[in-house]
């Protein structure tokens, strides 16, 4: 296997983060962990954006991943973080395979609204589920990497998340250049042409939907392990809205973008809450508008501007 520049950079950033994990204060490590985990969920949103589909319901898979982790510990007594994550990913894959059959028939606003509706239905089910604590949710049982409990959960989950993020980023970087990845973009550009090349746009979108669901569920599972708590809010539409927000913030230009955007989002929000506890939503809104107006391709265009210029 040969590695390109992005892949080498990926390794570099991963190592840098791993080292800074030894130096950084606890709050920053936690913030990084959650940002990376949420970045994974956002990767799922971005994958679909590349195919021209904007999901306002990616919280569905975020929530499924999280609840699988919570329920696996609660009801099945699983204490291995890895196994719990696998559980979440499998559950999301099965759900996406079913929902994808219907959802891939829709485009644009209709896809957005219908994905939102499904997420809200899960929210409703969980709110009804008193055995699962309804809106209060429940705490994730103590866990360890392969068996619990971990001696230092904060650091364990940080390195686990970092590893997952790096592996997924590597895969996604390849994926965007693979047959399915490029045809996704082609489908966004011109579905009729894809059909007349003898390919099925629906199959492509379906495959992409399922992969995106899996990636997002992994992010949800990692968030649940890190925060130690799951609740139905994970499936609420505003949570999905936040993921779309971060996706737009980063742009679709690189596998780094969603992670970077998730980190910037978390930092902006936490400092906004601290400095302007009554106006942090406004600060987020203005940030988003500024990005859309001045960096329509997201934060990532700050890094790739030179290359863009050379192209055109």
């Amino acid at each position, binding site marked *: 296997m040969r590695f390109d520049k992005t892949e080498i950079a990926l390794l570099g950033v991963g190592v840098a983060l791993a080292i800074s994990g030894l130096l950084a204060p606890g709050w920053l490590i936690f913030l990084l962990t959650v940002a990376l985990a949420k970045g994974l969920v956002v990767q799922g949103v971005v994958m679909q954006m590349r195919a021209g589909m904007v999901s306002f319901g990616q919280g569905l898979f975020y929530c499924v991943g999280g609840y699988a982790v919570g329920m696996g510990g609660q009801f099945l007594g699983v204490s291995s973080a890895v196994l719990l994550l696998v559980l979440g990913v499998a559950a999301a894959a099965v759900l996406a395979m079913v929902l994808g059959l219907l959802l891939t028939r829709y485009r644009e606003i209709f896809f957005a609204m219908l994905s939102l509706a499904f997420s809200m239905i899960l929210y409703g089910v969980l709110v009804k589920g008193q055995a699962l604590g309804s809106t209060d949710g429940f705490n994730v049982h103590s866990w360890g990497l392969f068996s619990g409990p971990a001696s230092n959960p904060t650091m364990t989950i940080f390195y686990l998340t970092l590893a997952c993020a790096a592996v997924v980023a590597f895969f996604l970087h390849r994926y965007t250049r693979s047959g399915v990845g490029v045809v996704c973009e*082609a489908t966004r550009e011109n579905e009729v042409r894809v059909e007349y090349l003898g390919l099925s746009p629906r199959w492509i979108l379906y495959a992409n939907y399922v992969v995106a669901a899996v990636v997002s569920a992994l992010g949800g599972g990692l968030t649940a392990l890190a925060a130690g708590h799951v609740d139905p809010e994970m499936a609420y539409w505003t949570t999905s809205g936040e993921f779309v927000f971060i996706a737009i913030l980063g742009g679709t230009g690189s596998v780094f973008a969603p992670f970077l955007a998730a980190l910037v989002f978390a930092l902006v929000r936490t400092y906004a809450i601290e400095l302007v506890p009554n106006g942090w939503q406004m600060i987020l809104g203005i940030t988003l508008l500024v990005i859309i107006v001045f960096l329509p391709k997201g934060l990532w265009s700050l890094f790739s501007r030179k290359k863009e210029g050379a192209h055109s």
Partner: protein
Amino acid sequence: MSASIILETRGLCKTFGAVTAAKDLHVTIAPGEVVGVIGSNGAGKTTFINMVTGYLEPSSGEILFNGKSIVGTVPRAITRMGLARSFQVAQLFPELSVLDNLIIALAAAESPRPSFFRPLRTRAREARADAILEEFRLTAFRDARVTAVPQGARKLVDIAMALIGEPKMLLLDEPTSGVSVDEKNALMDTVMAAVRHHGTTVLFVEHDMDVVRRYVSRILAFYSGEIIADGTPDHVLADAKVRELVTGHAADGHSARKGASA
């Protein structure tokens, strides 16, 4: 079924509400033929192509390709059976480069299920794409985004993508529309050279009678959803009805319109 028919339509009809776009069309085309389709705007030419390639379902009638009925078959399956088409307005991937457009077509021709991991752009595909670019004299636009490429080149890319799957039959929908007068022949020469190279059966819709006369062995004249003449170019173009309804007014009106837009 005789082996000397590649495409046959029987009693093909299509109505859109009160409008009849195709009325009882009977067409048979033999392998290797180059057929021109003429007719004024709204005569039903594109509707005919759309039905044959599965984009529109006929209201009634039968379509046979290589003796097999293809009514109700989706476009991608028809493409895979070896019946490809180009479009009046080039259907490309505008934000991607010309090279990527071709590479996607090359990969699609290889397999209907692309890979999740292996890169789409391989050395082999790049080399083949470069050969195609050369064949169609598009090398200058290799890395340009489609949106930055002139109309004529876009039409060529569109046709090249249709040809990449090595179809048995190719339907060209106004290959020279939107192309300036002096480029038309060059474009058609390039296309026809490529087609002859593969021995492909061709049916093309064209407004310019000079272009039609130059390449085809047979003409179908459409008027108001019906075929009013079918035969050799000399025969059809001399037909009184065709002169009155198709070539007379339409040709004048058409060239006037082209002039304005060019």
